[in-house]
């Protein structure tokens, strides 16, 4: 159990040394994000799951509107990307809280003994779905037989589970890798792709084609996404700060929901500057994802039913989840 603390301490020294070295070389003078990663009281390093887009709107608002500051917290926001594996950032001590995919996190706990706890989830329904052109008539997993489906390699097991749950023989679907580029779909080089349904349909529409989609969730693979994960160590030692973080973040999402079209435009020149995404896409996403994350008990909720569904769905892909991997008591304290 002391392993993590040891690592953090050494990491701290190493980082300090390397920041100093970088400063001497004039590297730090560029200010290109040499973020402090020390575990100070009141400072939480938060690892997001992807590059800056509307998926993280609530956290941006909580930072900008001072919700974290009101709780006495300083939040260092760490952007993600395809090669950023949030769980690794947690294990290495560079982040205190991370947004992850539940299947990856739970597999790491079950198979490798990773010391993680899930303390909430942003998406009640995983936004991952099958997107296709209306002209291809694909409205359920069965319609994909004989078609080409592009799947990001990280989602392969989820897609396999969807087919198994729907009773569709997977070997009758041609699966190719997907790199989050909708061009092959628009060009009809592929028939369908697995992607967040909160953004791609808009892009397809802009290209003058009519998109249709369905969620994996709606065909029995009932997991959420952007699970909020901490290490057992952080949970034991920094519980009040985590509760504060959850409270302030929830406030951020509630503020966002007041007018879903307000903040994407407001942050176009700050958080979203130069991401390559247009404000229209982020606005579309912000509106489209709202029904997937809202919950009667408040954002981030995990009911016993939700957890049971997650456990059952993951069992379909051979991942053994148990109830004790989830900790709902922090949500209760908000």
């Amino acid at each position: 159990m002391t392993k993590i603390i040891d690592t953090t301490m050494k990491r701290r020294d190493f980082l300090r040394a390397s920041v100093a070295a970088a400063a001497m070389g004039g590297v730090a003078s560029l200010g290109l994000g040499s973020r402090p990663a020390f575990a100070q009281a009141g400072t939480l390093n938060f690892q997001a799951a992807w590059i800056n887009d509307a998926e993280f709107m609530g956290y941006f608002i909580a930072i900008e509107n001072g919700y974290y500051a009101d709780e006495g917290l300083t939040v260092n926001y760490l952007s993600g990307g395809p090669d950023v594996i949030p769980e690794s950032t947690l294990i290495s001590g560079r982040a205190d809280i991370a947004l992850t995919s539940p299947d990856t996190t739970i597999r790491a706990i079950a198979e490798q003994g990773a010391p993680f706890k899930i303390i909430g989830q942003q998406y009640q329904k995983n936004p991952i779905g099958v997107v296709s052109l209306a002209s291809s008539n694909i409205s359920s997993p069965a319609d994909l037989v004989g078609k080409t489906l592009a799947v990001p390699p990280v989602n392969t097991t989820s897609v396999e589970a969807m087919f198994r749950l729907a009773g569709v023989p997977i070997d009758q679907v041609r699966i190719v890798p997907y790199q989050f580029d909708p061009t092959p779909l628009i060009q009809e080089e592929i028939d369908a792709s697995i992607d967040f349904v909160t953004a791609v349909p808009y892009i397809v529409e802009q290209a003058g084609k009519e998109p249709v989609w369905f969620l994996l969730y709606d065909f029995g693979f009932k997991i959420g996404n952007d699970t909020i994960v901490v290490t057992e160590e952080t949970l034991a030692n920094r519980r009040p700060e985590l509760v504060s973080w959850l409270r302030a973040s929830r406030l951020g999402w509630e503020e966002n929901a007041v007018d879903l079209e307000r903040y994407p435009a407001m942050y176009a020149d700050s958080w979203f500057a130069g991401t390559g995404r247009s404000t229209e896409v982020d606005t579309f996403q912000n509106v489209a994802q709202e029904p997937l994350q809202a919950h009667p008990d408040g954002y981030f909720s995990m009911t016993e039913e939700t957890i049971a569904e997650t456990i059952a769905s993951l069992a379909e892909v051979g991942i053994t989840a148990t109830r004790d991997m989830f900790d709902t008591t922090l949500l209760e304290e908000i």
Partner: protein
Amino acid sequence: MSTVAVTPAANPVAEFASRHAGWLIGLGALALWELAGDYNLVAGGALPSPSEIIRQIWLDRQYLPRHIGATVWPALLGFLIGNTIAILAAITFVLWPPVERLTRGISITIFAIPAVALGPILVLTVDGIKPMVVLAAVSVYFPTMIAMLVGLKDIDPRPVDLIRAYGGTRRHILLHVRLRSSLPSLLAGLKVAAPAAVLGAILAEFGSGQRWGLGTYLLGSIGMGNPARIWEIGLIATAIASIGYVAFALIAGRATARTKQVTIASATPQDLAGTGGFTPINIAYAVGAAVVPFIAWWGIMKWLDLSPIIAKDPIGLWNYFFNARNSAVTQASLWDALLQSVPIALLGLAIGLAVAFGLAVLISTRPRIGNVFLPVALVTQTMPLVAWAPIIVLLFGRDLTTTLIIAASVTFFPALVTILQGLSLVPRSALDVLRTYGASGAQQMRMVSIPSSIPYVMAAARVAVPRALLGVMIAEWLATGMGLGNLLNRARGSLDYGMIWTVAFTSVAISILFYQLVTVVERAFLKKYRAGSA
């Protein structure tokens, strides 16, 4: 018959055309590209026209400078650091040859570690722009070190004899002969290293979570279904890389002209290939070279002190592969992947080298072809594959053809540069002898130029082996979903660092195996050829 017969020389149009062939062909290609883009002729409109791309650059002008700066700066730092280390290493290797033999494993390992495996680990161990600097430095180390080494070793023996006769030491030889004669070869290495640094920096951005940089910009843009933006980013990256390449090409042009040997220099095979044979001392060195990387690996893991879930030292990896609960599955998926990837990599390598050799010979006999072709070749080299992949997939589909094209295209350019370098350094006196006897260009090529460029072909082949494997893995990762590339990608998605290390280790092991194989072939060839010509 009223047609007036004109000789080409008397026809101003034909004269103009032949003098400016490169420009004309370039302009023609540009016009065709514009038409193909405007009328959506290629890949259903996925190929944007040059004017669309220029328009996109104008639209994006607000953020472009910052993205460019955020990529160029770490690439430049990495270029400086990596090359400094490479040059110092090559000098050390020449002064103390045992060091080279013992660290050979480390040198190849640095080159052969797949960036897709190194990136996620780097991001966890250093922060800020350092992952980009490190990956850029790692990308340039091997090509520069090898080029410098060849340059330092391939020397005119006569001044060496002179220095020795007057009691000069190895350091005097280094100072007065080797360093000078290494310059053209070093510059050729730096030419290849410049695009590699840009590519390394961009690849590292994918894992760094940085807000700015061309790689980050590409990530945000790739989901927008806007090919013009993808091409814009690719072309800017290409332009940056090309500036580095052209700068060193210009310097090389001057330096080579000054240092070119005017008379025959016959380097001895021992100098170039080392002493061969299975003597006890050689075997000891080989064992040492194999053991040193493992010690370094173990030491680095110890020093980083990361969680054993992420970091695997040699023993950890051994246990993961042989003694873990899932080991049987791990082994089976690795063999499957190897069988899919390795044959394609070798075929791609063969094609890449053959094309490079053919083109190098063609270009050295008809320099005008080089004027037209080298810029095109440079573009294919420096354009990030992530940007190319959608286009290649749309044009060639998702089968083995695509994998072969990518594998061959990443292999052939560095090989071309290195072989061209070899052909340009052919001793003039040897060619003069042939010319005196009325030998044709082809005969000069066959009898002198090609044989004397063999060390360079071999150097190219060595550099090409890991690249071919990487090319195949990138194609599998981006397009086909097969083999090692796919295995790596799925492992990253399931936090299976054991598999990431397994793939990294296996691909390094394969590269070293072929590196040694090329060395053996080279030695045999040099022995035969030099003995015959002496």
